[in-house]
């Protein structure tokens, strides 16, 4: 029982101040949110446009495969020399440690899933509906904005949710490149063999991840047109399935 009492005391004693968990949660959320928003701003329009024009199939397959094979820990570690170099080169960036490498890594990590899901979502819209819309005089941007995009929204939002959860998870590793965030407790706890701090950090990280997942699921339900009869997307048709002559229906994580 002693351990849990210590754990409770830890939470009571460490909520305030610069190293308190309120600040750490905020740091964690801040870098994650900025990275996801930036990635959505870049990858969503790109994926939507390429999906609309039907181009970029090969790019999507490559992005999926490379994205999966790249270890997030490696991306984070590689971001550090990059931002240090950037801080030396670009005058308005004066610190290559902490926020910068964490942001760069999370941004890089967030691009592929947002891009591929947007692309797949737009491509996955029933061609007959698109045909009908064209028949009614919809073209180009309007077709994309008023017809394809709303219909693709469930798949796109699934992509954003998966991305956000992954980003929050990886932000934990930001502690290794000098950032704050909740990973700090785990990494410092490892170094000082402080089990209470390790478990407290793990609890906070786990809670934040589950909360992120829950929040985005809620948004998905709210935002998607009721006409689409939101059956929660459990299997997203991956580009892989499309391009291999439908050899095997690959069940994929949503």
């Amino acid at each position: 029982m002693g351990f849990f009492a210590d754990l409770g005391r830890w939470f009571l004693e460490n909520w305030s101040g610069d190293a308190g968990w309120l600040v750490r949660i905020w740091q964690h959320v801040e870098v994650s949110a900025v990275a996801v928003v930036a990635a959505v701003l870049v990858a969503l329009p790109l994926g939507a446009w390429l999906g609309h024009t039907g181009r970029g199939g090969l790019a999507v397959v490559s992005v999926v495969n490379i994205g999966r094979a790249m270890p997030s820990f490696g991306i984070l570690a590689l971001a550090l020399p990059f931002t240090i170099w950037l801080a030396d080169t670009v005058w308005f960036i004066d610190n290559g440690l902490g926020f910068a490498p964490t942001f760069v890594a999370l941004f890089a990590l967030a691009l592929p899933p947002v891009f591929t899901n947007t692309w797949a979502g737009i491509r996955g819209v029933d061609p007959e509906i698109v045909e009908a819309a064209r028949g009614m005089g919809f073209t180009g941007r309007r077709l994309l904005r008023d017809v394809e995009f709303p219909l693709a929204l469930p798949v796109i939002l699934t992509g954003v949710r998966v991305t956000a959860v992954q980003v929050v998870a990886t932000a934990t590793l930001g502690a290794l490149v000098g950032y704050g965030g909740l990973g700090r407790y785990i990494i410092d706890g490892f170094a000082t063999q402080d089990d209470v701090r390790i478990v407290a950090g793990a609890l906070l990280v786990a809670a934040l991840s589950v909360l992120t997942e829950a929040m985005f699921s809620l948004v998905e339900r709210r935002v998607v047109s009721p006409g689409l009869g939101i059956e929660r997307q459990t299997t997203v048709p991956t580009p892989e399935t499309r391009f291999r002559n439908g050899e095997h229906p690959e069940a994929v994580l949503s």
Partner: protein
Amino acid sequence: MIVAQAAGDPRFFRWDWVWGHLDLIGAKVLEHLVLTGIALGVGLAVSFALALVGLRFPRTYQPITWVTGLLYTIPSLALFAFLVPVTGFTTLTAEIGLVSYTLLILIRNIVAGVQGIDPAVRESALGMGYGRRRLFIEIELPLALPVILAGLRIAAVTTIGLVTVTALIGKGGVGFFILRGLNRFFDTEIVLGTALSVLLAVAVDLVLVTTERWLTPWSRTRGAG
């Protein structure tokens, strides 16, 4: 002395360092493969058991995916952190975490694979007098194999990436280089660790694709694939 040399060198990637440390690199690659292999083996066994339960008693499927989904959502570092006070900086800690991440992917694909089989096929097998067990082993399993192997491929590639994180609990395979390179600002090790992890993922994926073709020769004759 090595640290000073490493930190002071301006070059981004030093091949001479790589040639000088081939033994260590080989050992870490091997460790990486062993950690991955154990995780996939155990993960596959556990997933098969849980998938069978889920298929036999459909009511249990939802809770099973819920729990494994929760495990999947918890960041790897947090999962390792929960275990460290109990199991320490050991291979066991690493494997429990790694196995947890394979479960959701594998269970979903096993169940989807079996459920995706044409009911008429099952019907004919039952009509020919197949029992439940023989039906599963001789009919359902082979037909579900492509989907199961597709899941195994995703699980394998994901696990290889996650193994690098176990460097933080003293394991890590090639992740060892990433962490050490990070700690002493030695870019060569960071690049090496990341590149090796990607190469391992690609190589293992290729091996699995080849195995899949070899195990399911009938799917080759169909279509152009």
